[in-house]
């Protein structure tokens, strides 16, 4: 009788996959909604657009996914980027104030220029962060704290402390428009995730990032130009935050220097951790991060659908996050569920497993999931 053993070994392989627990939590959270909203999983067509809770989760989660994907690479080098929220605000402020100054706000060229300007500012912020961390040797948490604090000031300076509203059809598309029946944001996110996976796994960038994060001294002695790599990931992270900034301001057709992207850095870090990338650096998983971001967005949606009172929102969120983090801990799993999930998967926790995140297929599998799930 070989069947039971193969089944159990398949089950084993499945539970030991690096995406198993994040996906399990996501599915669980989605199911929790069903008793409260029986048509939670239904997607209907209206005006040539797809509507439904699942579509909304991906749509509203898009900025977080973008920021978290950039954050993943920074964290993989052993760093952290607290400035992404401020970069979101700066990018949105720059783009909107440029558009609002034009006589024809709907002109495509003006909108493209505005977006380019915003993203350029974002990349400059990232290069500054990278310079401080890699060249000046400042601890990442301090180096990025500078723009986290000062960047909001810059954003308010750009908008004169006002909320700038724009009325531009082309600009509305990126965060609030539809294409092929789906929100346009979803395509942007899919493209960024695909580019990130290609950039890290089709080139050697992912390997070198993991080496730098996994053992900095060994990487130096092996001749990896780790400064260059660090500057690149901070710039890339800021670029992702910039795109998220465009998306958020486009969605509301307004730039709010004060509140756009507020605390998004913390949600992004959380998404990375839920996705199974260690804050100590080393192995990273872009696919895991996408799932992690979806978990956080689903949680936010769930809080509304099951009607948790507003004032206990944060407490509820915190409680769920604690449970998710405990589930991620091999030690905890070994204690609670016994050896089946725990002992063997200790490997997962300490190693973030060889086969798993290194495989680009695994990561890109997660990307389409955004549309389906």
């Amino acid at each position, binding site marked *: 009788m070989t069947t039971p053993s193969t089944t159990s070994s398949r089950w084993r392989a499945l539970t030991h996959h690096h995406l198993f627990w994040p996906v399990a939590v996501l599915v669980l959270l989605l199911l929790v909604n069903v008793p409260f909203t029986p048509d939670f999983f239904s997607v209907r067509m209206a005006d040539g657009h797809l509507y439904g809770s699942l579509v909304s989760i991906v749509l509203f989660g898009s900025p977080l996914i973008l920021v978290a994907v950039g954050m993943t690479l920074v964290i993989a080098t052993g760093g952290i980027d607290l400035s992404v929220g401020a970069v979101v605000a700066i990018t949105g402020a720059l783009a909107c104030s440029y558009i609002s100054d034009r006589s024809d706000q709907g002109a495509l060229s003006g909108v493209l220029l505005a977006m380019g300007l915003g993203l350029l500012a974002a990349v400059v912020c990232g290069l500054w962060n990278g310079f401080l961390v890699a060249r000046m040797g400042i601890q990442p948490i301090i180096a990025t704290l500078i723009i986290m604090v000062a960047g909001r000031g810059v954003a308010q300076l750009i908008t004169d402390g006002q909320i700038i509203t724009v009325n531009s059809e082309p600009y509305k598309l990126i965060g609030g428009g539809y294409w092929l029946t789906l929100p346009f944001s979803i395509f942007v996110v899919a493209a960024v995730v695909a580019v990130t996976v290609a950039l890290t796994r*089709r*080139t*050697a*960038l992912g*390997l*070198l990032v*993991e*080496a730098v994060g*996994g*053992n900095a*001294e*060994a*990487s*130096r*002695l*092996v*001749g*990896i*130009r780790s400064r260059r*790599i660090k500057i690149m990931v901070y710039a890339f992270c800021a670029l992702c935050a910039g795109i998220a900034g465009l998306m958020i301001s486009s969605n509301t057709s307004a730039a709010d220097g004060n509140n756009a992207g507020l605390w998004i850095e913390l949600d992004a870090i959380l998404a990375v951790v839920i996705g199974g990338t260690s804050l100590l650096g*080393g*192995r990273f998983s872009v696919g895991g991060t996408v799932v992690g971001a979806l978990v956080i967005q689903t949680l936010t949606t769930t809080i509304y659908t099951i009607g948790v009172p507003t004032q206990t929102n944060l407490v509820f969120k915190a409680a769920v996050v604690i449970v998710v983090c405990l589930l991620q801990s091999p030690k905890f799993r070994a204690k609670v569920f016994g050896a089946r999930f725990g002992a063997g998967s200790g490997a997962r926790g*300490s*190693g*973030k497993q*060889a*086969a798993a995140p*290194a495989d680009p297929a695994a990561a890109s599998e997660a990307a389409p999931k955004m549309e389906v799930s």
Partner: protein
Amino acid sequence: MAEPRPVLEMTGIVKEFPGVRALSDVDFRLFPGEIHALMGENGAGKSTLIKVLTGVYSLDGGTITLDGTAVRIGSPLEAQQAGISTVYQEVNLCPNLSVAENIFIGREPTRGGRIQWKRLRRRAAELVDRLGLDIDVSAPLSSYPLAVQQLVAIVRSLGTGEGAGGGEGPGTKVLILDEPTSSLDRDEVLRLFALMRRLRDEGVAILFVSHFLDQIYEVCDRMTVLRNGTLVGEHLVRDLDQVGLVQLMLGKAMGQLDELHEHQLHSGAGETLLQADGLGRTGGIAPFDLEIKKGEVIGLAGLLGSGRTELARLLFGADQPDSGKVTIGGEQVSMSAPNDAIDAGVAFCSENRKSEGLVPELTVRENIILALQASRGWTRPIPAAQRDELVAKYIKALDIRPADPEARVGRLSGGNQQKVLLARWLITSPKLLILDEPTRGIDIGAKAEIQKLVVSLSEDGMSVLYIAAELEEVLRLSHTIGVLRDRRLVARIANGPEITTSRILETIASGEHQ
């Protein structure tokens, strides 16, 4: 002269770790008012003995007698309370606090739960004065150089006998100094020695560990030699010369160990590959000249801490030299970072496989291709087919087990990890391969394989700089032997039938040029 009663006696000490007997039946005694050296090569059991004495490890057998009464030392705190104080190689103090605070940290004089700052400073000043040190106790520790910090650490350890309430306790009877001089310069060493002599004259028994033979002969009265966890002997320093000591430490009588080595020498006298002129680094190694020929194997011999690793690191740009220059293949190389050396064809396998070599959570394959990939840059990944073929080839050639490129390297045995590191550099086809203790901590079979590999690489024209603790190993493989002593390259000896380990030992012990 009637010997006084020892203040400390350790008898029949046994300490076992899984699979290893670190100390077997070791006797050790320490008299009041003496400076006693504990000697032995790496792994001889020195630090295990100290850790047993200071309560870090528990005893597996034997007894410890302090002042004539048997004691059980269960923890470092109990050791301190019994009057045994230790100062380690790295200064374990808080640089941001004042000298006085550091001296009394954790046992500040208090009244009613509040620290009596005035009293603390006064007591600290008294202690420092009594020892003849000129230190302002209210200045932050970081304002003093490392040597003074070391002295403060000693002062602190002397104060440990005093009770928290300020009452006088038993005071320090035994002071253990574990490699206190390794990062001090000559003047600083003299200052430390002055303090040690003063304490000795006050009746403190000092246990001194140092890899510098000259320092042992300068300051110590008596020494105990360990080898492979057993006691080799206890001698008055004046009764045992340096050659005799080195023999005891390495366990070879000079006459006995000839003729074992077979030379696979061939006249590899190619053209010059690398030329170092006056290359040196303060605190690392004194300026040296070294020529490495194509296909030549240069072995470095010397005791631990003699500067072998420091020399190798300079040739790789792992540390930046502050004097001299390096020419490789006729062109001067700046050596400001490992990249410069790697680009010039130098490869370096560190003796610290874990901290400086492997990325433990990456796979065997990823670790192997890391150096090659780093030199290609991130934009040009090695094509998967070529990569897998290279990795498979080296896994097979070096017999890496398990032969699974997907295995996490952190889980491999020491010998296989070493082979992964070798493979990493071999696929870059270097001109000079620097191997720092490549056979340390690996089993005998893997050892032999690595040595054979060195010979065949050299025959193919690769130059190798080979560092090993075992002289036979160095002698068997090298065309030329560089002898180091006290961070100085003291001799270069062309290997030949007449060169024996005893000859090398003599050079290490005497430190004289040929």
